[in-house]
């Protein structure tokens, strides 16, 4: 025998091979995860860093250190460039759209689940079908419609196209269908009308889904860019996403003040981030339940 080893060495070797295989694997997994995280986080971190730099600092490409004016950029953007107003406009638009969407979608889902009317499923599939036509596809006829209504450059024109939501109708319908029929029948036996049932039973029983859907709607609406750009002409009525573009455009002599653009970018990210943090539990369960 060439390799006669004492028991202790054997045990050690066994232990090492046993430990190192999963250890190496874990190292690999962590490496990949960190790399992915870096790819996702780098733009955000860079934006945050640039938002503290001065105009001259930001043009030193290699300067990745926090800048010398951590707060000045923010006050400049918010007040001199009117970004506070744009953010407020965005918030109002988003709130109105969410409230409108929830109201319409909850009513539609209630009708789809609890009323027996002819072609009920066809109606539902037609609603789903609208998902196949995103805004850019219908923007021309939509604009024409708003023009005919005289709603161009108005708040109604800004918000009304967003009020209906196939996604929300779909998610609420799924939720309502999962509620046992006996619950509804108990209410029917008591003569509780559909609206009362919606308000006192369905909505409280669907709180999680409503929160999740609201979060999805908030992010989608907050990030709307194309429609506000097209339909709103006056700067003071414009929303933050378009406002971001104004800041890009104000630089003198072709010089874009990227530090201010980054500052506005950071600002515009904050509300969706807050909503995500608050609603993440409901959001996950909403998406998991479909």
């Amino acid at each position, binding site marked *: 025998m060439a390799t006669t080893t004492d028991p202790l060495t054997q045990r050690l070797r066994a232990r090492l091979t046993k430990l190192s295989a999963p250890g190496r694997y874990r190292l690999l997994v962590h490496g990949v995860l960190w790399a992915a995280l870096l790819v996702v986080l780098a733009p955000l971190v860079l934006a945050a860093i640039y938002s503290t730099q001065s105009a001259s600092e930001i043009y030193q490409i290699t300067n990745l250190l926090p800048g010398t004016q951590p707060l000045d950029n923010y006050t400049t953007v918010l007040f001199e460039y009117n970004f506070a107003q744009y953010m407020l406009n965005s918030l109002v638009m988003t709130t109105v759209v969410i409230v409108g969407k929830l109201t319409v979608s909850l009513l539609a889902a209630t009708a789809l689940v609890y009323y027996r009317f002819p072609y009920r499923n066809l109606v539902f599939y037609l609603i789903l079908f609208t998902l196949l036509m995103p805004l850019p596809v219908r923007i021309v006829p939509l604009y024409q419609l708003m023009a005919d209504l005289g709603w161009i450059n108005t708040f109604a024109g800004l918000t009304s196209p967003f009020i209906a939501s196939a996604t929300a109708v779909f998610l609420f319908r799924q939720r309502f269908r999962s509620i046992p029929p*006996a619950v509804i029948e108990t209410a*029917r*036996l008591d003569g509780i009308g559909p609206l009362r049932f919606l308000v006192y039973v369905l909505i409280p029983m669907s709180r999680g889904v409503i929160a999740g859907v609201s979060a999805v709607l908030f992010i989608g609406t907050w990030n709307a860019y194309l429609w506000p750009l097209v339909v709103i002409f006056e700067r003071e009525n414009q929303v933050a996403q378009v406002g971001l573009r104004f800041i890009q455009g104000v630089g003198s002599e072709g010089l874009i003040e990227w530090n201010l653009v980054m500052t506005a970018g950071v600002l515009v990210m904050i509300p969706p981030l807050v909503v995500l943090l608050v609603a993440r539990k409901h959001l996950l369960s909403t998406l998991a339940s479909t």
Partner: protein
Amino acid sequence: MSRVELNTLRKEFGETTALDGITLSVADGEFLVLVGPSGCGKSTLLRTISGLETQTAGDISVDGEIVNTTPPKERGVAMVFQNYALYPHMSARRNMTFGLGSHGSFTDDEIAQMVSEVAATLGIGELLDRRPGELSGGEKQRVAMGRALLREPELFLLDEPLSNLDAKLRDEMRTELTHLHDEIDATTIYVTHDQTEALTLGDRVAVMNNGQIEQVDPPQQLYDVPASQFVAEFIGSPQMNLFEGNVTATNGRLHVERGRFSTTVPGSPQTVDGGRFTVGVRPEDLYLADEAAGQQYSDPCELRVELSETLGDSVVLYATDGETTFRVRTGARQQFGTGDVVSVVADPERLHLFDTDTGVAVYHSGTGPPAARAVTRQ
């Protein structure tokens, strides 16, 4: 309290006939159980009575008043469902009181008073502020019962209310239901697929099959004098033995014969001529020959044991004569092995004859022909 009359009630769902001409009357204060296999239409019948479904044809009347198109809440019914149907976001108290307003105008104090009385009756006083998620199955069912009681209905409809409970709790709740019914004395219609519940709870039991009522009778009558082969098989556990046999009538006496099994039926039935019939005998009416020494039973028949089941109070043998497997219920604490040959006799007083084609009962040896007993058949 109220009297319910159903007259040739039909319910069709597209091509399917769920109720096929149901005629039934439920007396004031009666506890009627609807029992039958899955899909026999018993739940549909209950839902049609409640108004949750609308019948295709036929009439429903409550206290002589036709309620065919009356909306559910005006029929004075309260229903308890198998899955309790409690609102998960409301406390037990709120579950009971929600929707009460549409049953009449009560002040808050009156409602609170009523709730505490009902809760005391059901022993759920401590649980009123909990939500359904914090209640056990039995407690939830009590809350659901409480909700129904609070409505002081003319008519109680219970749709398999105990099916989701475990066996022990089900036994307890069954006893409580009987007490409760004695106490409040409301007309009750109770749907179940469980024959034990049916026999123990019902003043009368209606056995349903394929959208029709096969028989409505008090439990013992149902067991002793089944109106059809279906009822005979459905009621009783282990189920009744059925086999085809030759019946000969000589001098007004019936002689039943099948292979080595033969017996003369007591009495002198005038209604049955000879021919082939389906013979029914319950497992407890078959005896081991040595257990039945000295009795006037049928000639012994040798059977080979295939399986024996110990039930504690008895042993059930599955034994075959080569053609049919018979279920024989014998005394407890006996040992049988597969392949043992046992000698079995039948109590001729307890034989049932059914028409082989239609399944209708033609003769019950203990009690005479069914016609004489006014057996209800629809």
